[in-house]
């Protein structure tokens, strides 16, 4: 009870702080900032693993690197398989996080049900500390929605833990106002709420909470007849509203972390990859360098792309070009094939700017001697020599080492959302969606993963409830490898992944059963 009061107060404080924060990144004064603050949530492994404190301690063994799997007694929706392993020593904790739930989204605000897959009595965590009550009964006017998430933390585990506990509630909150529209698949979503003839005027529903607090100023829904229009109108399909809801949920999650870090210790940042199955479609939203692929009949269908300094170079360069102060006079937004040396001043060197994918020559000036905004290749590419991933949540306090230059303006919380229509295909028991953090993909290609899966699954009993977890364990084992004299090794004596590795194997056949 006390903690709930505390968190309510904290949320209130967070709200106030957010209003006036802006460029203010509280440097540890006045009891806010720094690590004396309490954790938002205690560190742990994914809730669905159901590990005790002792088990968490055992799992953090950087020498033997035990592969954790879903226990025999536990089940995830759709018989989803899961396995994970800790890094080889780069951080004390496994900084990956995951969560998986069935959400029931109901139209009425205050009736979003979260059903954790284990039968705990834990109250659902609330995005804003306000009343989303647990309701056990009907889904009569609600929509059930499956949710899987995967987060890869860096510079601390705080943001990943918070996101794994709260992002699902933001997703549910964003979707709840859309439930009626989405269920009515025969009619395109109304462009303007309250204007459609078949929609009864119900201003209270269309109001955002903020608007209602403002006393209903600007509330639509005045009962005048819809005006005749003479201009063309874009047709917005239903799935685009879901995409928009997921994008908003990511943004809200990031804003919440920003607010709450004044009262909680929420360390570091994280990538986020989530899958939502809603009304027969899979929505895969990715911000960061985790990856999702579908393996259907042995064929690979990529469901995400990675956001790294290399893939987002032009966006980052353009931002730096438009807002050069973000570079703190220490970096140049231009890219050169290598560091420019002082003795090369006045010579012509290859370079590229935000508007280019090709290369050209320019005369080297003083400014070009500065450290490049994006430097390094492949996994070593960094933004301002600091971070290797360009989208995700958190990182609000991340600065260039030994400077006052913030990285956050260059990072985006916006996910790329891809849609997969489950009903368009017949899926077999070996057709799966794989989600994994970069620990897997750094050492195994899509093809190798697909080959492993198409070898493994057909050799399992199709009725074995653990087959997808065993497949996930197999993938983690292939990426971790075995510790030899010269480090962790995988097939063909290649280097195994020393990173945290987390893998979901989600069978798609269950998606067909739904619809």
């Amino acid at each position, binding site marked *: 009870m006390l903690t709930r009061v505390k968190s309510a107060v904290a949320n209130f404080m967070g709200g106030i702080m957010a209003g006036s924060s802006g460029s203010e990144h509280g440097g540890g004064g006045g009891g806010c900032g720094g690590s004396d603050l309490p954790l938002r949530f205690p560190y742990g492994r994914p809730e669905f693993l159901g590990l005790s404190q*002792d088990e968490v301690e055992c799992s953090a*063994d950087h*020498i*033997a690197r035990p592969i954790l799997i879903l*226990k*025999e007694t536990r089940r995830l929706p759709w018989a989803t398989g899961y396995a994970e392993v800790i890094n080889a020593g780069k951080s004390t904790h496994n900084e990956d996080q995951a969560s998986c739930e069935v959400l029931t989204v109901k139209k009425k605000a205050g009736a979003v049900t979260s059903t954790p897959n284990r039968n705990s009595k834990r109250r659902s965590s609330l995005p804003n500390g306000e009343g989303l009550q647990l309701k056990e009964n009907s889904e009569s006017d609600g929509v059930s929605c499956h949710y899987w998430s995967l987060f890869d933390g860096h510079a601390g585990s705080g943001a990943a833990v918070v996101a794994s506990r709260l992002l699902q509630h933001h997703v549910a909150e964003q979707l709840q106002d859309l439930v009626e529209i989405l269920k009515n698949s025969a009619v395109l979503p109304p462009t303007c709420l309250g204007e459609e003839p078949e929609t009864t005027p119900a201003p209270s529903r269309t109001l955002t909470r903020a608007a209602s607090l403002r006393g209903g100023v600007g509330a639509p829904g005045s009962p005048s007849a819809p005006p005749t229009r003479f201009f063309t109108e874009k047709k917005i399909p239903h799935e685009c509203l879901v995409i928009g809801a997921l994008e908003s949920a990511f943004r809200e999650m990031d804003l919440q972390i920003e607010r709450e870090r004044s009262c909680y210790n929420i360390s570091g940042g994280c990538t986020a990859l989530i899958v939502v199955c809603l009304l027969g479609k899979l929505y895969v939203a990715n911000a960061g360098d985790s990856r999702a692929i579908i393996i259907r009949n042995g064929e690979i269908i990529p469901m995400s792309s990675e956001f790294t300094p290399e893939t987002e170079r032009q966006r980052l360069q353009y931002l730096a070009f438009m807002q050069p102060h973000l570079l703190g006079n220490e970096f140049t937004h231009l890219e050169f094939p290598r560091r420019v040396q002082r003795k090369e001043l006045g010579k012509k060197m290859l370079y590229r700017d935000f508007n280019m994918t090709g290369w050209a020559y320019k005369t080297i000036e003083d400014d070009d001697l500065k450290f490049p905004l994006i430097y390094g290749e492949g996994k070593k590419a960094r933004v301002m020599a600091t971070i290797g991933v360009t989208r995700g949540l958190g990182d609000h306090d991340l600065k260039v080492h030994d400077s006052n230059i913030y990285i956050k303006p260059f990072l985006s919380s916006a996910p790329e959302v891809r849609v997969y229509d489950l009903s368009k295909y017949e899926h077999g028991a070996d057709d799966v969606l794989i989600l994994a953090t970069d620990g897997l993909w750094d050492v195994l290609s899509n093809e190798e993963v697909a080959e492993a899966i198409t070898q493994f699954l057909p050799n399992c009993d199709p009725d074995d409830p653990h087959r997808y*977890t065993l497949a996930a*364990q197999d993938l983690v084992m292939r990426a971790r490898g075995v*510790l030899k004299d010269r480090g962790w090794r995988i097939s063909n004596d290649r280097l195994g992944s020393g990173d945290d590795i987390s893998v979901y194997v989600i069978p798609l056949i269950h998606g067909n059963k739904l619809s």
Partner: protein
Amino acid sequence: MAYAYLFKYIIIGDTGVGKSCLLLQFTDKRFQPVHDLTIGVEFGARMITIDGKQIKLQIWDTAGQESFRSITRSYYRGAAGALLVYDITRRDTFNHLTTWLEDARQHSNSNMVIMLIGNKSDLESRREVKKEEGEAFAREHGLIFMETSAKTASNVEEAFINTAKEIYEKIQEGVFDINNEANGIKIGPQHGATNATHAGNQGGQQAGGGCC
């Protein structure tokens, strides 16, 4: 809870010999007649006292099935003790001991203490492996030996604790490099601290260690 030492154990042996049941009996003092097949690794932990010192046992329970052998093998490293279990009512589980032992010796550190356990001693009427055979195998390979019953709890405490005593003695003899975590031994957070900090349960530990 504070401990002087932490020892990491691994339990190995054929599938169905009772590895998970031994662990459950030791950590929870209960017996579960029907147990799901272990398909990965599971953990247990318990505090014991040896020589007046709190010792935390961290126990890794592995899958016995052949198909998980490569994963199980990778867990030997960093274990201070191993319980190698066979089923006295199934001779084949006894016959496979050599393979298990080879595996363990090859993938673990050389000082790992191995306790050979003939489990299911309550099923005397179905016995296929004589106690003497187990003793002989242990003698031949330099292992400690006990027959246990996870069902009746007979000798279960002893098996885990005697292994710990053996490890503890090796530490006293200086055989283990306790600063190398790859040996499966960790020194507790309060070990070596002055008595002034904790007058409670661990207060006499320094003095106790010194005079024994």
